[in-house]
């Protein structure tokens, strides 16, 4: 909810790991369990994670949590589905098709085209994390 009465704005958004380019969680990780793979997805290797929680503390998006198994877990952008050429589960099941997934490095991809033509924003830009999740507005 934004603005002053009577000009109020309501914003509904779905939040997940923003897969930052300058990821504080990857910087804070003492073992290298948190890492960025080719393509920009931030992942955690469970067997290298000691569960110290530094990454959870550092994330401005509160995207991380302690898995009941002890290690830290997070949105993987459905890495296991992408490997098979499928879309992330959230994108593929969205009933209103309001989410898009693709390669931002490819200027002809759907997501690159959308960012060129639509107004968009990122969350917590003041944290300087350069997130890879964009929110299309209007």
């Amino acid at each position, binding site marked *: 909810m934004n603005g002053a009465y009577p000009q109020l704005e309501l914003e509904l958004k779905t939040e997940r790991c923003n897969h930052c380019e300058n990821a*504080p969680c990857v910087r804070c990780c003492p073992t290298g369990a948190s890492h960025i793979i080719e393509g920009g997805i931030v992942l955690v290797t469970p067997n290298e994670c000691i*569960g110290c*929680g530094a990454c*959870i503390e550092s*994330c401005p998006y509160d995207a991380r949590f302690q898995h009941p198994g*002890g290690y830290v877990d997070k949105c993987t952008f459905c890495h296991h589905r992408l490997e098979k050429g499928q879309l992330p589960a959230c994108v593929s099941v969205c009933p209103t098709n309001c989410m898009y997934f693709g390669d931002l490095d490819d200027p002809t991809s759907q997501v690159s085209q959308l960012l060129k033509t639509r107004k968009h924003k990122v969350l917590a830009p003041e944290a300087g994390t350069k997130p890879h999740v964009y929110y299309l507005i209007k």
Partner: protein
Amino acid sequence: MQEEIFISGRDLPKIDPNLEIWHFPIALYLFLGGLAAGIIFFAALFTVLNKEKQVPAVVKYAMIIVPIAFTIGLLALFYDLTHKLYFWQLYTTIRLESPMSWGAWVLLVITPLSYLWVFSYFSEIIPTWKLPFKFLNQLEVFLVKNRKIMAIILLPLAIILGIYTGILLSAFNSRPLWNNSILGPLFLTSGLSTGAAAILLLSKTHFEKSLFTKIDLALIIVELALIITHDHGYVCRFCSSTGGT
């Protein structure tokens, strides 16, 4: 951290984002680590300066606190890990970007050294006890001879130990009140001041008492200045955002 938590004060497990990741053991370790860093700094400094005979409370008695503080502190850190049996992964890599990685490596070196330091003063602290085995006697002679080398190694490690906890907290982009450059020096000064205060409690001679009173007072003044610098920016920003001056 999200604004809605500040506003609503909610903290529902599994629904709201976790506010409390680090629990009381971390706070306990931060205190004990700072205390140990402070005592080691002074003990090593006076040994490097060849003044250890004038400050027996520092090099002999206050240093006994250090291995105890490390043992309790490290157990507390271990207790707070959620994937405990993988803690050795800390020692498979050196990550210069991660302050916790520096801390883990510094603790790996400084903890055994602090035990050896106290052991090197064993005969001086309890002269009536004889060490049971011959190799323990040889070890003690060796350590007494190399005390200065230990001090030279310990001095920079104590500074890193005192400052890394502050840098660790200041590296969290999500916590605006921690994410600043003052926190590291502030933690170091506060650790040194706590160390000086602990030494003051154990010192018996007038020289040591007056010396460490002066050191502690100076450190407290520096600390106050750092706290004012730390809060000044936030207070100004808050006042300007609410329309005040």
